[in-house]
């Protein structure tokens, strides 16, 4: 597996996670993954997908706070704890 495959997904940026996920999807679609590693690579892809979804949810939560709080007035840049 490539060296970046061992990187900790929980701290990855969205851009890095989606880049690796796209690379995994392409490898799986092209049939360039050995049979023996195929499941491990697919499962890595699932972890990356969950990380991307988590980051998107966090971004949506921040947008929601700005747009729905304070009677329609912007709140500023205070971040929302979505853990």
């Amino acid at each position, binding site marked *: 597996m490539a060296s970046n495959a061992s990187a900790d997904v929980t701290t990855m940026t969205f851009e890095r996670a989606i880049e690796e996920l796209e690379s995994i999807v392409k490898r*799986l*679609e092209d049939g360039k*993954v050995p049979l023996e590693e195929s499941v491990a690579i697919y499962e890595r*892809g699932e972890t990356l997908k969950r990380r991307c979804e988590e980051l998107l949810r966090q971004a949506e939560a921040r947008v929601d706070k700005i747009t729905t709080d304070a009677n329609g007035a912007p709140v500023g840049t205070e971040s929302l704890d979505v853990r």
Partner: protein
Amino acid sequence: MSTLLLTHTASSLNHKVSEGHPERPDRIRAMEKALSQDTFKPLVRDEAPMGDLETVKLCHDESYVEEIRAMSPKQGLVYLDGDTMMSPGTWEAVMRGVGGANAGVDAVVSGKAQNVFVGTRPCGHHAERNRAMGFCFFDQAAIAARYAQKKHGIGRVAVVDFDVHHGNGSQDIFWADPTVMYCSTHQMPLFPGTGAAQERGEHDTIVNAPMRPGDDGVKFREAFEGVILPQLQKFSPELIIISAGFDAHWRDPLANIQLDEKDFGWVTRKLMDVADKSAGGRIVSVLEGGYDLQGLHDSIVEHVSALMGH
């Protein structure tokens, strides 16, 4: 009529692989343990003979066949890719698989048996016309289908593949052949990357019903009842070859499908129903994958029991 079991233990065990490789000799030991139960005493047992090289060329390019034979090592392992390797015993093991599948065809055509299970390794359905891959060298299920046509004059043959990996080799071989229907359930995405529903062959005789990771027996049965069985019945095969891989079992380490052994019994009986209607009940089932020894054991019990009419 009876069910015939064709095996060749010595050669199947002599196909050596690297340490920790999932397609290992213990798979054959698990199969033999399963079929040593009293339930299986009525099986007629025979040795899988060596295959005829000319029959291999019905599906694989002559130059490829010769290349594989020439690569056979005197000692150690020769790697064809990261998954696929030859030891000194591999050639005989592969040719016993081919011979077993063809002998299975002879048995059901002559009436010696109603149906046959060929329990050899390595598997075959990833082997393309001129490429070894995914633990496979020659596609014995595909060869048996063409052998049945050439030797016995059978018109329409169906190859039904429920191994969890798509049989890219079988699809490659039959892509432009209107006389053989290739049907497959398999996980997508997964190795080898082929098998989308829109891959239908030049004559609509390729039928792929991909499953999502995590799908269970309910989805498996839907795939057969909704997609494969109607197409199969319409095609009306005169012989059914099963590429019987048991790696869609929930225990299997190489995939994420959640079948249990009863699902393999169910699908076997469904295919027997089709065979009864158009093929005089003739089925030759060829072992493909299945890498968890307990899952393989339990699945073979259900599959062969079903073939025996239990």
